[in-house]
């Protein structure tokens, strides 16, 4: 029987020397909305070129923490973020950091696919255009094709790039959104329940895509599906009531969690 003492999360849990270097370093990150504490002193090291899953019950703070990574909490009135959050050594919350530039390197994929009301081509070309990543139409074409290929969508849309993005199926739209995110060479891709609006086949395609993308990106995924976290991630962090309870290798978390709260949550025993 696992003991009942509380385990403070080991920041470098399960990380050995042979693994990818740390991409994101959070120290004592706290978030409050209008004085109400939503995230309580979260410290975590997220490795590069791997998938880290955030799990936990609704309101546990996992999405709040995710939103800190590209400063989306800035847009919320009354939100206050403290602590240190570094991506590649750069302090995200530094005043000199332009959130728009930050969000180019920290892409976000939401629960509901949100393509722009533009053509498939323009959805992907939009970012590279405004960030000046392509000098010519042919360069832009190349970026669009490469991004759609990386997102596993090219074969399905190559002959209808001028169709509206919204004409695609839900799963295709989600892959389009991922293509849009990777078109501007992000460092980190955040995914907030990217499959919760998709059927199992579309979900499998996204999961396959996530597995391919991890070779090049640091991916953090928030998911309510324990099985999805187990399938796609190498590291799993369990949040509960605004704190990071446990962080470790996904296999360990799902076979032998240390903290009784993690144990109760993943086995469906949460009170």
């Amino acid at each position, binding site marked *: *029987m*696992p003991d009942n003492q509380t385990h403070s999360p080991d920041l470098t849990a399960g990380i050995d020397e042979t693994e990818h270097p740390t991409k994101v370093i959070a120290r004592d990150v706290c978030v409050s909305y209008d004085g109400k504490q939503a995230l309580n002193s979260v410290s975590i090291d997220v490795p590069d070129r791997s998938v880290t899953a955030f799990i936990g019950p609704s309101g546990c703070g996992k999405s709040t923490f995710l939103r800190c990574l590209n400063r989306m909490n800035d847009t919320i009135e009354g939100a206050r973020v403290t602590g240190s959050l570094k991506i590649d050594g750069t302090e995200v919350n530094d005043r000199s950091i332009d959130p728009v530039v930050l969000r180019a390197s920290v892409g976000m994929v939401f629960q509901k696919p949100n393509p722009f009301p533009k053509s498939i081509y323009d959805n992907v070309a939009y970012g590279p255009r405004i960030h000046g990543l392509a000098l010519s139409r042919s360069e832009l074409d190349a970026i669009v094709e490469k991004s759609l290929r990386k997102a596993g969508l090219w074969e399905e849309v190559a002959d209808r790039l001028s169709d509206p993005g919204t004409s695609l199926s839900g799963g295709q739209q989600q892959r389009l959104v991922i293509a849009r995110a990777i078109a501007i060479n992000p460092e980190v891709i955040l995914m907030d329940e990217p499959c919760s609006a998709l059927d199992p086949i579309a979900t499998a395609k996204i999961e396959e895509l996530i597995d391919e993308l991890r070779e090049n990106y640091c991916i953090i995924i928030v998911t309510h599906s*324990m*099985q999805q976290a*187990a399938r796609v991630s190498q590291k799993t962090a369990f949040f509960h009531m605004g704190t990071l309870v446990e962080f470790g290798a996904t296999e360990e978390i*799902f*076979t*032998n*969690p240390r903290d009784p709260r*993690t*144990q*109760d949550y*993943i*086995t*469906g*025993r*949460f*009170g």
Partner: protein
Amino acid sequence: MALSKTAHIVTAYGEELDQLGDDLARMGGLVETQLETALSAIVRRDASVVPGVRQREKQVNAMQDEIEKRVLRLFALRQPLATDLRMTISALKIASDLERVGDLAKNIAYRAEDLSEYAPLSLTDQVDRLGAIVIKQLHEVLDALSSADVEPAIRVWRTDDEVDERYNTLVREMLMSMTEDPGLVEPGVHILFVAKNLERIGDHATNVAEAVHFMVTAGPLEVDDAKP
């Protein structure tokens, strides 16, 4: 064999896990009866128990099938995790070991039929002692399983060396007796098979001990744990 103090949110899931534990306990009890009956048949030279043993053997096999079905259903429909995952996978392994114990006990009982045709052998006492240790092993490991307690499991694991020693001594002495008196060869061979089967049952009991240890701790039973 509750590994968590908290109940499942989905009651039916919790009940299915409980049923799996109950089935294992019942199968364990049945197998214990088989072994006790078989050993007493050897010691008392009483072959009358054989039909009952044969009947229970069918029940043991049916219970193993039932447990395998339950485990399959749990994996397919519930996708157990953490302690539930470890319990489910351990149940599968333990049921397989218990089935082997049942089968070996049945073989021992069958030898009682053969042995009843010969005069009593002095070495039967040693078989009885070996059997008593193995019965205790099986009893303790089933206790460890039902209480999800690693201590008795480790004790059982540790006893394996003693079983092996006693078995080897018995074989040596039996061989000597058979060399001295060729008339003892036929009953002696039966006794050797009985002893071998008991030693194998001891091995299965230690397998169960390892499974219980894994179920409770998620780690393997190492030599260090077994040190007194």
